[in-house]
């Protein structure tokens, strides 16, 4: 009942693990897969290894968390060994792997994409991390021309579907969505974290995050993510994967009504535990049964006037 398809890839359910949560190791991905995710997404991977920002890399605020991990990863060449260790098992339990990648420019993105392609089912281009600096992440995703160039370069170099993860921190997300689809994006993931924001400790007068600023995730950003999905759906025809503040099956219904074919869950793991994927799927299924509808019936329903 929950099966969906995105760009020719079939998923047993539409509730995926988002990039950046429990994705640093193969073991962590395997655990999320066992907890019912329809797909798991790797930590964002680059060409070279990166330690990321100094701690604190996360702090709780009203309605969610700020984080500034700073794209830590061992480099794509070392990370593919993590995937080698789990991909047979994931295949057996029918959980797809999304490879999240970052780069400084179209060439760097494409190199990482080519290395990772044999180990994943889809790629997700992270052009939206709000705290990486150095020309990475949102510095690309806030510029339609640069976004277009990155996407079209990767699209030319790999065969598997390419999803592009967008930042909400732009004047008009529709403009970026159109640019990446023109560049050849097969699907859009929306949204990455909001902001960045900051938190200051009033006893010491110091910013709490090591990077001072961090992207906001969690329940408070759900209305913004939902609006972004709704707007993107209104201007492009590719599938959309909604992400931002999702913790229940009812949240998923909302995202589907806005136009998302699937969703990703990150911070929700904190609120409801590692088995949140099972819980959300159960709630979604209950909703569909009670209302006697299928996923395709509610997809984009909020656009019908």
């Amino acid at each position, binding site marked *: 009942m929950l099966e969906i398809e995105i760009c020719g890839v079939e998923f047993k359910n539409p509730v995926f693990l988002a990039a*950046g*949560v*429990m*994705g*640093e*190791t*193969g*073991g*962590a*991905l*395997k*655990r*999320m897969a066992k907890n019912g995710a329809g797909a798991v997404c790797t*930590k964002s991977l680059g060409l070279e*290894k*990166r*330690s*990321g920002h*100094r*701690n*604190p*890399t*996360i*702090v*709780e605020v009203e309605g969610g*968390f700020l*984080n500034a*991990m700073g794209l*830590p*990863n*061992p*480099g794509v060449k*070392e*990370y593919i060994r993590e995937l080698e*260790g789990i991909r047979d098992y994931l295949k057996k339990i029918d959980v797809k792997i999304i490879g999240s990648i970052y780069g400084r420019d179209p060439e760097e993105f494409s190199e990482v994409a080519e290395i990772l392609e044999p180990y994943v089912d889809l790629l997700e281009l992270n052009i939206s991390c709000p705290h990486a600096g150095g020309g990475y992440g949102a510095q690309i995703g806030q510029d339609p021309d640069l976004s277009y160039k990155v996407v079209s370069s990767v699209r030319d170099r790999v065969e598997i579907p390419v999803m592009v993860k967008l930042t909400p921190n732009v004047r008009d997300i529709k403009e970026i969505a159109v640019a990446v689809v023109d560049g050849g994006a097969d699907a859009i993931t929306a949204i990455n974290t909001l902001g960045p924001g900051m*938190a200051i*400790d009033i*006893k*010491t007068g*110091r910013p*709490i995050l*090591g990077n001072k600023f961090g992207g906001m995730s969690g329940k408070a950003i759900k209305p913004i993510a939902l609006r972004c999905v709704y707007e993107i759906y209104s201007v492009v025809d590719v599938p959309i994967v909604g992400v931002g503040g999702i913790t229940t099956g009812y949240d998923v219904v909302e995202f589907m009504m806005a136009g998302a074919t699937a969703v990703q869950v*990150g*911070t929700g*793991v*904190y609120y409801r535990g*590692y088995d949140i994927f099972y819980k959300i799927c159960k709630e979604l299924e209950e909703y569909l049964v009670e209302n006697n509808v299928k996923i395709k019936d509610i997809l984009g329903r909020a656009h019908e006037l």
Partner: protein
Amino acid sequence: MERPEICKIKEIVVETPTVKTFILDRKFLFRPGQFAMLWLPGVDEKPFGYSSDRSFTVAKVGRFTEAMHNLKEGDLIGVRGPYGTSFEPLGDRILGVAGGIGAVPVVTAVEEFSRKGFEVTTILGACTKEELLFVERFRRCGELILCTDDGTLGYHGFTTEMLERLLREDDKFDLIITCGPELMMKKVVEIGRRYNIPVQVSLERYMKCGIGLCGHCALDDEGLCVCKDGPVFWEDKLRYISEFGRYRRDGSGSKKLI
């Protein structure tokens, strides 16, 4: 709220040439073996086990701990916790095996166990006499057997050799708890299995969020997180932690052999 609570350092106790205890101006409700993320503004935030309900005890081993050791009484640090699992008593007779700074969680556990009426024996080891930590605290809990690598005090050799000797004479222990260098703990687990005594170990890994979200301290092969599923693990869970005693990860997630 998962954010640091600022505490003032009331007193600093020099325990050994490389270890200091920082006594803070507030009391914490923690269970023995749990940890907190300690924040030094402008420096970093790292996990440390509680050494009492109002203190942390830190060995100088790197950049962060060196900055800790430079702190003065009256300075402020942030404390985020308590997090993770704790040592749990079992049976009547409990044996603690502690090596080096690993004495921190073990001493809080055996203190609680002895207070609750369990019979406690501890094997405490260090590289040399001056580095033996919390000797008096351990002694107050029950029998204490000291070991030094260089033979300057007590048994001349490793805690694990002493453990073998002890169990050969008397293996009627219901539980072994251990913390110390990972290779030492691995040996303790092997010995415990041989004598059919359950073991709890306290693991350490590079941590970032401390709350089971980022997955940086996730252990192969099943993704158990040291911060949330640990740091204290029962020996049976170790069967699913293939990296135990073999490798750990650095800040990038890259594997480093132990």
